[in-house]
């Protein structure tokens, strides 16, 4: 029992830490092109990049469209991303978890 509540506490603390990172540290993130983009520029294949199919997404480039303040926009987009990743991860891992042997019918039913 205690283990269980402490796992819940761990997960909540972890999510709060992730929120804090995107809210407080991401404004300090280095805006330069990353390693691959730098190599693409230097080696001369950056020009082959095509427009992103989600370039018009309301979350494109880690900003929430309609939110003008840069810090808030990036921070909010990060929180949305964290929660979306957590939710999608929970769903995928709930499907990928070890089934209890005692309940094969349920396990089978969830497969598809």
């Amino acid at each position, binding site marked *: 029992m205690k*283990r*269980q509540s402490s*796992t819940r506490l*761990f*997960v909540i603390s*972890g*999510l709060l*830490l*992730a929120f804090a*990172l*995107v809210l407080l*540290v*991401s404004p*300090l*993130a*280095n*805006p*330069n*092109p*990353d*390693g*691959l983009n*730098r*190599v693409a520029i*230097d*080696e*001369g*294949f950056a020009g*082959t*990049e*095509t*427009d*992103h*199919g*989600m*370039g018009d*997404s309301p*979350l*494109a*480039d*880690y900003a929430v469209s309609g939110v003008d303040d840069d810090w808030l926009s990036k921070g909010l*987009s*990060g929180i949305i*991303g*964290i*929660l*979306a*990743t*957590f*939710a*999608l*991860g*929970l769903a*995928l*891992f*709930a499907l*990928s*978890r*070890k*089934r209890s042997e005692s309940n094969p019918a349920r396990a089978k039913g969830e497969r598809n």
Partner: protein
Amino acid sequence: MHIPDGFINAGTSAGAALIAAGGVTVAVKKTSRYLDDKQVPIAGLTAAFVFAVQMLNFPVAAGTSGHLLGGALAAILVGPWAGALCVTVVLVVQAFFADGGITALGLNVLDMAFVTALGGYAIFLGLRKVFPNERSSVVVASGIAAGISVVLSALVFVIQFAIGGNVDLALGSVLAAMVGVHTLIGLGEGIITAATVGLVLSVRPDLVYGARDLGTPLHIPKTSTAEGVS
């Protein structure tokens, strides 16, 4: 490291997507052999944490940044196959942020999720065999394995570029540039990974997949003696 659309031709991207889909299928099957109910939220948190830290680009050289890939970190925390799935989930969500191409998703899943998680974990295991069986070794092995995993990821990109790059360039030059900059990024990856694994080990060592064997009576860290034995 996210490959945008256009760097690699459509055929190669489609091939990579097929291999990535196969990899995800295998990963789901392998994960379902060990991931218990308690670990499901931990794996979800690991994915969410990787998403957050991937937003934190650090400077690596003049005019260049890098960020955590996180595959090795996720693998050490929740196991290699679940770790690969964690980063795959991150990459899928990032598509909505226009980060990493859509046709390039399979390429990125291979480079950033599978190569780093499986390759990083293999290196981690190898290092643990030669290091003493104690907590600090787990932390150091995590950092080194994570750092090397970034270079592995860069190497696999160069292979993809060699097969399907949309421009004909001297591969040696691309290879040298990729390995050079990703060695620097690997330093950051190693530091972040070691710090995170160290943090989790200090709070809940039982949640670190790569350190499950540390609970044995011979090598009990003093704080968890009582629980470890029972």
